[in-house]
């Protein structure tokens, strides 16, 4: 039950007994373990603080992971790009490597919240919050990203396609686990990407629809070798539109192919009618438009001629 506005507005304290700032990963995991599920990881805090203040979340301690070493870099690792768990949206949006080799992610990160939010909010946090409207999650899904999660038991690697479980729910338990890095393949020569977003304003607005596409052009430059299409927030979790992906694979890059793919792309869409985000009918129609436009833009960037 939400508190009345006045109480929420003026209730300044978080009601946490401890604020811990570990300086190494093992120390951070020990601190979480010592609280036996009653502590929570905090990074930028842009989701955690409002949740604590509205009492949606109650914890005895916060473990601030923003000073852990080796978590703040964006690096090339062979054909892969590695993003540390502490990297902010502002950092990713401004990174020449991300702009050049994962353009859709740079664009998506530039849309999150406000400049103030992007300066502190991390991509890892965007994933862990598990919101269907997350601007970084959708492009990372299209990039086939995988995340490394550290716990007292060791490290595990989870593909993003298996990461999201429901609204606000992921396979990561932030009372005992820390998302330490995000890894995906840099876009290659015959690849292009697109990030399309429908919102009510040009800034500071949650998306009504996000469509992220990574496309690979065929050798002839006129066909589609493969495409990855990710959508949100039109279901409880951001997801890959596999049927449209399978439909376009190996097909000629024609307006008809793209239009037919768009028609198949709404099977998994179950958006709610929302005063904030528009009606189910409208958003379902817009999914078709965005899948068509997204494929066209990504293929064009990949050097593919559509016609």
């Amino acid at each position, binding site marked *: 039950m939400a508190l009345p506005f006045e109480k929420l507005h003026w209730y300044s304290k978080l009601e946490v*007994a401890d604020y811990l700032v570990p300086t190494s990963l093992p120390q951070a995991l020990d601190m979480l373990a010592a609280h036996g599920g009653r502590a929570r990881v905090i990074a930028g805090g*842009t989701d955690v603080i*409002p949740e604590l203040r509205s009492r949606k979340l109650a914890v005895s301690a916060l473990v601030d992971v923003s000073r852990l070493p080796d978590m703040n870099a964006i690096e090339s690792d062979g054909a892969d790009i590695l993003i540390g768990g502490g990297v902010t949206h502002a950092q990713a949006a401004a990174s020449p490597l991300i702009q050049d080799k994962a353009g859709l992610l740079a664009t998506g990160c530039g849309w999150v919240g406000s400049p103030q939010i992007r*300066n502190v909010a991390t991509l890892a946090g965007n994933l862990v919050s598990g919101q269907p409207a997350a601007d970084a999650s959708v492009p990372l899904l299209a990039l086939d990203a995988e995340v490394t999660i550290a716990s007292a038991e060791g490290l595990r690697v989870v593909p993003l396609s298996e990461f999201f479980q429901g609204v606000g729910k992921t396979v990561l338990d932030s009372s005992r686990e820390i998302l330490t890095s995000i890894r995906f393949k840099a876009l290659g020569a015959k690849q292009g990407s697109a990030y399309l977003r429908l919102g009510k304003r040009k800034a*500071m607005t949650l998306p009504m629809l996000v469509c992220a596409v990574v496309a690979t052009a065929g050798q002839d430059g006129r066909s589609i070798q493969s495409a990855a299409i990710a959508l949100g927030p039109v279901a409880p979790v951001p997801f890959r539109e596999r049927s449209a992906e399978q439909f376009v694979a190996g097909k000629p890059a024609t307006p008809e192919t793209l239009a037919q793919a768009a028609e198949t792309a709404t099977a998994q869409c179950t958006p709610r009618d929302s005063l904030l985000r528009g009606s189910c009918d409208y958003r379902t129609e817009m999914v078709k438009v965005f899948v068509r436009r997204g494929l066209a833009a990504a293929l064009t960037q990949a050097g593919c001629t559509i016609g």
Partner: protein
Amino acid sequence: MSTMELSFKLNGRALTLNVAPDTLMVDLLREDLGLTGTKAGCREGECGACTILVDGTPMNSCLMPALKVQGREITTIEGLEKADGSLEVLQEAFMGEGASQCGFCTPGMILTATALLKQNPDPDEGEIRQALSGVLCRCTGYRKIVQAVKAAAKARA
């Protein structure tokens, strides 16, 4: 609940305080240090009235546990005034252009614009609007605010 020691630089002055672990930066500034130039608006990161500069970067102090600023350099609107009491070019420009109505968003606007002009001394209108997009003015005074930032950039050139 025990307090923790917190050291940081506030408007050029080194400070060491004992802070409760659940204190937010906006409240430390306003309630404990009496610096009420930083405003508490929505307290949810939507309005930007609480914007402060952390190592020169604009951030929402309402979403920031005070203990996060350990070792950082913080600038609030009070920190822009020079030792002789004169104001920064941006503050003068906001007065000159009438870019303030109720004034509640003004500290956030001016600090955000300070960071912008440091990074980009000659921004175009789009860049100004983008940089200020995290601070809401409910007097609908954006036109004059953008003009004031332009005027300050020109005065500095």
